């Protein structure tokens, strides 16, 4: 069990090194002749106007929020599914009620027009 988590920890380091080291090497080996035209932002050849990091459409934010609500609640269902054998009838019904609340939440969001792309 411990060696399994040791594997994950070492794998994290190795997996970061595998793409990281070639990128570093290529940066050392490759040419480096920057100039202001080459380094300018590529937007179809037209000169860029204004700041990039501006206010964006609220739509994306709403989808992000809806996702967050669902994902946080779904994490609670994993232990429920694993311990399914030892659950009493009440435990199963409680879990199903929890999913039902999620479902109603989705329908409410649908009704409110949150899921509409405008």
């Amino acid at each position, binding site marked *: 069990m411990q060696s399994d988590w*040791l594997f994950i920890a070492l794998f994290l380091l190795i*997996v970061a090194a595998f793409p990281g080291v*070639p*990128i570093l090497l*290529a940066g050392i080996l490759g040419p480096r002749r*920057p100039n202001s035209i080459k380094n300018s932002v590529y937007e179809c050849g037209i000169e860029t106007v204004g700041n990039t990091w501006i206010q964006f459409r609220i739509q994306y934010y709403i989808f992000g929020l809806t996702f967050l609500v669902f*994902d946080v609640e779904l994490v609670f269902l994993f232990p429920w599914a694993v311990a399914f054998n030892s659950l009493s009838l009440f435990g199963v019904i409680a879990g199903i009620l929890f999913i039902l609340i999620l479902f109603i939440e989705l329908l409410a969001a649908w009704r409110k027009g949150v899921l509409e792309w405008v």
Partner: protein
Amino acid sequence: MSFLTDPINAIADWLESLLLSLGLTSQAVTILMTLLGAIVVGSFGLMLVIFLIWVERKVYARIQDRLGPNRVGPWGILQTFPDMIKIFTKEYITPIGADKVPYNLAPILSVSAVLLAWAVIPFASTVVGSDINVGVLYIVAVGAIGTLGIILAGWSSNNKYALLGAFRTVAQMVSYEVPMVLALLIPVLLARSMGVNSIVQSQQVWYILLAPIAAFFFFITSIAETGRAPFDLLEAESEIIAGYQTEYSGLKFGMFFVGEFLHAFTISALTVTLFLGGWRGPWSEQVPLLGTAYFFIKTFIVYFIVLWVRISLPRLRIDQMLNFNWKFLTPIALVMLMATAVLEKILSTWLPTLRLTDSGVILIRTITHLGLNVLVAAGVIYLLRSYTIRREKVGQPRPLAVAPEPPASVLE
């Protein structure tokens, strides 16, 4: 004999005894062996990409009635090596005003997130990187890091098109994670375990028969997670240049592609592991090497289907794609989860009272689950049909997009 049936473990045992005889402590040996195992799994994944790039190009070319790479090596199989050397010697161009740290971190994240999932995929009954008991949760958690890498790339490039790509990522990849997690819950429920290897071991009958809807949903949503056609809105060439990777060059650009190719193979491997029995097959328990062969044969079949989908289908529009996710996949996946839970509870209380043989229990479980899936699918098709018929009766096609009313002054 043991070397013939299970070479990887035989080599590992031999190395371990060799290291112990050299006078190292057992702790140091464990750390060294684990490190070696991690290096083997990681480099195997990356070596695979070299082959996968060739497979993908060749399959594409044949479907499009072209020849594909055919000059370097037999059937062009070595074509990837000159390409690699070429991309290795290219210059990095960093746009003015880019946010340096996330800009350089993003390609590394997008590869490593995909590679991380390989830690828990079992290649045979005895060959698995790390058999942790929260494997499925680990896969979900690691999958989310890849999305983060793409968002970082789009945000830090200081390019408006790249930023649009990042926004689309939020709308698409993040949304498709909800039905994916829901579909993943069903094999967890059926196996009563989150460990990937124990899910494979519990599949006396492949879970695609017990949960075809979940398997189908997982397949679709994980294709959407890879960000390839028909879900390639985040790098739609005809709309936003190349999306999040517009400002990348050289090997940093290449790393995004390594991540994408490997991701396509990883989702095939995950589909096989969770729904198609993984390494299971005749005599795979006795001869683990045979299990590895089954695993890769199945994975390449699924991988071919992934490529086939990519080459056949056109790109979706963003509102269609989000409607498909939130109004089709998510509700049905929620209903499926509830129905499966109820059926499992009924079966687990009712079946032991019947005193059936093991194969009888498996048969009843398979038939009832399959019946439930057919029932839900029929209900969904009925609902969709009645919705369409109602719209036809009204005689008004649903507007594609709501155009704003022209101001009154224009009308006059």
